């Protein structure tokens, strides 16, 4: 091999970077996030239903929230009709957070896991004592 030392060092540096996800995770087991629905308001609900289906909310809540924001703040329309024809008042604080009053155990559970940092809280206030 010609210049073998340099090439092998280069190759090792590359491998050290490229295999980072493997060796940084080996032997670790991370529990999957379990967003908690354990709030007084949800407990008191007869039918535990969000504004849309659970599957829809899991995949699309971010888009729904941004549409709600635009609708409420830009068009001053605060009425949302869901896929079943039920009406909801568009409000993060008074509709979403009324049931899901446990931001830390509900929102942050998955957002922390997926490393997503939504900017809801740049404007909105979290009731449960600070962020």
């Amino acid at each position, binding site marked *: 091999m*010609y*210049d073998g030392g340099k090439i092998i060092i280069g190759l090792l540096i590359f491998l050290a970077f490229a295999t980072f996800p493997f060796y940084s*995770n080996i032997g670790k*087991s991370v529990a999957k996030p379990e967003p908690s629905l354990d709030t007084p308001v949800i407990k008191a609900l007869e039918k535990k239903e969000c504004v849309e289906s659970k599957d829809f909310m899991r995949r699309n809540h*971010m888009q729904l929230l941004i549409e709600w924001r635009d609708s409420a703040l830009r068009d001053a329309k605060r009425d949302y009709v869901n896929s079943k024809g039920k009406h909801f008042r568009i409000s993060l604080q008074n509709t979403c957070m009324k049931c899901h009053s446990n931001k830390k155990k509900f929102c942050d559970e*998955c957002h922390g896991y*997926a490393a997503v940092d939504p900017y809801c809280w740049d404007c909105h206030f979290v009731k449960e004592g600070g962020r």
Partner: protein
Amino acid sequence: MGAMVSLVAVLVLILIAYVGVKVLSLQALFGVFIPYLAVLTFFVGFILRILKWARVPVPFHIPTTCGQQKSLPWIHYSRIESPAGTWGVVVRMAMEVLLFRSLFRNLKTELHDGPKLAYGWEKWLWLGGFVFHWSFLIVLLRHLRFFTQPVPGFVKIMDAVDGFLQIGSPHLLMTGVTLLAAVTYLLIRRFYIPQVRYISLPADYFPLFLIFGIASTGILMRYFLKVDIIKVKELTLGLASLSPKVPDGIGAIFYVHIFLISTLFAYFPFSKLVHLGGVFLSPTRNLANNSRMKRHVNPWNYPVKVHTYEEYEEEFRDKMKMAGIPVEKDEPETAEADSEESEGKE
């Protein structure tokens, strides 16, 4: 023709993954087995390829330079364009690898009436390549959020900076868009410029279509079709921690995306994409331009049997003298005569 073959190949790959997941429910195959196989192929193939190249000697000293070589002390030389030592080479390589300096020198050549040859400004290829490579790197590093827990700070910072425009939700990540735009440009360039189209092969089109497919499925998945990202991360984190699991209910678009990426990984070491490693092994770039200071010996030189003039004259001196051919070293009768003659010559 090459483009059609490549396009069809990528479409078939997409179809394979879609049918495999939607119809045959082979989630474990496309989500675990193939990605592992592809990554293994990538690492083993990449290492073997580099070691293979490392065994190839460089017969000639061939740095391509575009500056004054180091020679006499009062002649100013170009330290980076024509590096004389290791540091110059390191800087030159860094500029090549990080900034694509040689592409920046690209010119447009035109023949006008006269005939006159004209060179014009042509930075589009540099710009396209630059945007493409850097976007791809950032996109790749951003994906570390699916393969680490806790996610390293730099990945979060990258995500925040990349999405700082705060367009929509999930927020628009600029590099995804620029990657798709750049790869589209690089593809259209191959169709549009006749000379480039003429030299383009399936090996050129296929990676472009493949990366186009990867970027567009990623964008589709994030902004339009939507998948349950928590389940996706469960799968990807399982892959990284070597304890794979396949959660139910991840959309087919995810499997298409990961299958195209697996293809890219597996294809990588056997294609021109290994310029990732090859750029560091280019003798035209990584050699110092010091051929006036150091002799470059071809490593495969073997000892050649030579017959020097001295030996030749030794052998035929008598015959040469008899034929009146001048000889360098006359058979000295006495030491004195020899020295006299040599003085006389001077």
